[in-house]
């Protein structure tokens, strides 16, 4: 056993199992299933055919029932493994079902109909990935257009968010002025107002400013976030004031103090906010849906909703495209997660 295995399998009570070991394992495995299970299901389901998606009971792996073209029948027939009265099993193709009895044929001897009880047959299935769920949207659906819109909104909004919020945080943490705490309080108070409450006034503002049906209308309304100001301000409070005094003595302008001293030192908190902002923007659905009504402006999340029509929902496409839209966010997390942990620990924010 390697060092890794020893590390993973070590137990509190030395040799025996202490009850805390059991609780730990149950907790961790339970957590893994709860957190990771849905993501796995989504990923596997995205490779299922529409028929397999509607199957009950559902399966995790994408199975496809095998079919065979049998002489004398126009359509391909589904293959089943049937238990014969003599106890042997045979692979048969199903012609039709009447009540509890299935009429089947042996593909090698197509002329002869065999009647089998429904409960005595099981479908012949094999794991098969329906990659057309992924390839088809790229040709039919304007995926690249939506991807570009989403990337544009996410990147531009995140940059503006970082700049605007860090400026506010700088003023609120490093300048003494009357009403400073009140300003901070008011900003934090807006956390209590959900988007759905201000949606209508926000919409009329955007529409008056002529930003309806424009990506800027999606970007601008939420660039200033109380969470961002709060995270950055708390972090900036930890930057010693002597550094700023030193910069003032060094003839630095207030802008230079912000840009060359405070911003670089706030990098860990900025990384946290950048991650949050990317995730928020990328996953944002409701606001872009309201502001954007022209197809070529849709972001990915809005574009995906095209697949759920009034009459039918093309789940296989939705699932596949959801997986694709998840990838950037997952990548951001994988590469920047150390900033999240250190940054959140540093800002004292949970």
């Amino acid at each position, binding site marked *: 056993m390697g060092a890794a295995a020893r590390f993973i399998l070590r137990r509190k009570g030395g040799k025996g199992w202490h009850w805390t070991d059991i609780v730990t394992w149950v907790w961790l495995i339970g957590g893994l299933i709860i957190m990771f299970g849905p993501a796995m299901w989504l990923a596997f389901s995205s490779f299922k055919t529409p028929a397999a998606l509607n199957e009950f009971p559902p399966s995790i792996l994408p199975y496809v029932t095998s079919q065979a073209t049998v002489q004398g029948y126009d359509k391909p027939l589904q293959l089943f493994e049937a238990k014969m009265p003599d106890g042997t099993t045979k692979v048969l193709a199903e012609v039709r079902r009447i009540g509890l009895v299935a009429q089947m044929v042996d593909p090698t001897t197509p002329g002869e109909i065999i009647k089998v009880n429904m409960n005595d047959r099981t479908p012949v299935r094999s794991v098969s990935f329906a990659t057309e769920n992924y390839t088809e949207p790229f040709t039919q659906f304007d995926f690249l257009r939506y991807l570009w819109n989403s990337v544009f909104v996410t990147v531009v909004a995140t940059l503006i968010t970082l700049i605007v919020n860090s400026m506010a945080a700088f003023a609120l943490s490093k300048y003494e002025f009357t009403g400073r705490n009140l300003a901070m309080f008011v900003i934090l108070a807006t956390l209590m107002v959900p988007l759905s409450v201000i949606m209508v006034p926000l919409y009329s503002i955007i529409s008056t400013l002529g930003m309806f049906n424009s990506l800027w209308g999606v970007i601008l309304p939420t660039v200033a976030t109380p969470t961002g100001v709060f995270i950055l301000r708390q972090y900036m409070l930890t930057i010693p004031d002597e*550094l700023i*005094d*030193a910069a003032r*003595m*060094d003839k630095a302008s207030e802008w230079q103090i912000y840009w060359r001293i405070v911003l670089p*030192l706030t990098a860990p908190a900025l990384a946290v906010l950048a991650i949050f902002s990317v995730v928020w923007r990328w996953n944002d659905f409701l606001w872009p849906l309201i502001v954007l009504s022209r197809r070529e402006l849709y972001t990915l999340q809005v574009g995906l909703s095209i697949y759920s029509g009034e009459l039918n929902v093309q789940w296989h496409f939705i699932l596949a495209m959801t997986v694709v839209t998840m990838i950037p966010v997952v990548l951001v997390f994988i590469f920047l997660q150390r900033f999240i942990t250190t940054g959140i620990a540093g800002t004292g924010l949970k």
Partner: protein
Amino acid sequence: MGEIKLTDVNKSYGSVHVLKDINLHIKDGEFVVFVGPSGCGKSTLLRTIAGLEKITAGEIQIDRKRVNETSAADRGLAMVFQSYALYPHMSVRQNLAFGLENSSMPKAEITERIGEAARMLEIDQYLDRRPGQLSGGQRQRVAIGRAIVRRPTAFLLDEPLSNLDAELRVSTRAEIAALHTRIGSTMIYVTHDQVEAMTLAHRIVVMRAGKIEQVGTPLDLYNEPANRFVAGFIGAPHMNFLKAEVAAVELGTVTLTIGGGHKLLVPLSGHKLKVGDKVTVGIRPQHITLAADPGSLTVKTRLVEALGSETVIHADLHGEKLLAVVQGQKQIGSGDEVHFSVAGAPLHLFDENGLRVKSA
């Protein structure tokens, strides 16, 4: 030139009055040390000179120009902070260059000045390191270097040695003194350590509770403290203070009675003391000697600290504490009875308000 003149400087934070009527004239090239207990306003005074704090009333002049309204950047001063305040994300070189770049100095000159300062402070080997990779002493040098490259009219140093260990503090103190001799600029140095003040200063400014208590050369303050506070603050260990009463006033001498009925003769003339006045007499521990004669001050020792070259005796004189530092090693134990002599020792007399009773 680096002449700094403070006239009636006052500073308050809301209702808290932290600087009260500060008047001070610092001459060009002078090394002035502000000293006082923590919270006495010495750092605030330095920051008002730097321009980092606005004063509430009064006037600050640098080279005869009023600078009350001038920003910190334009006063031509450089400051070394207690925490060094080096920019942690910049290399030592960038730290030194930052202030020069901001005054849009040509690159060649910046490089030259950094090279010169680095050689002077022996920090050339770590110009490309970050402050986090330096030891405390090295950071201290970089902080001083950052001030030197600016070639300021005056240096302001805010407790620059307080974060160094004792040994390094002594050597850096000597280096700062050497640096001052070499550069010759005005330096204002804030500390709460009176040893630093005594060793470095041309003139010491003793502050307490936002007021200047006394300004003078180190030996002036040591020999003729203006009041009880200065007397107690300057000199280590602290001066002994004994309650006394004037027993007799003659021409040129005052006789005092201290605890236990001992008589002390103080040469003093031109004073207004009368028989029966309550005064405080101050005796420096170093001025007390051991006597064999039982007629002198007889005290009971509480603690004897043998330091090798000298012996510190904590003693009790009729309920009053008395500390003596005597040269050499003595065979005295705690609880022993010994005889002290103050014959020939300079005695400092303070009246009921704590002010020095001056000899005319």
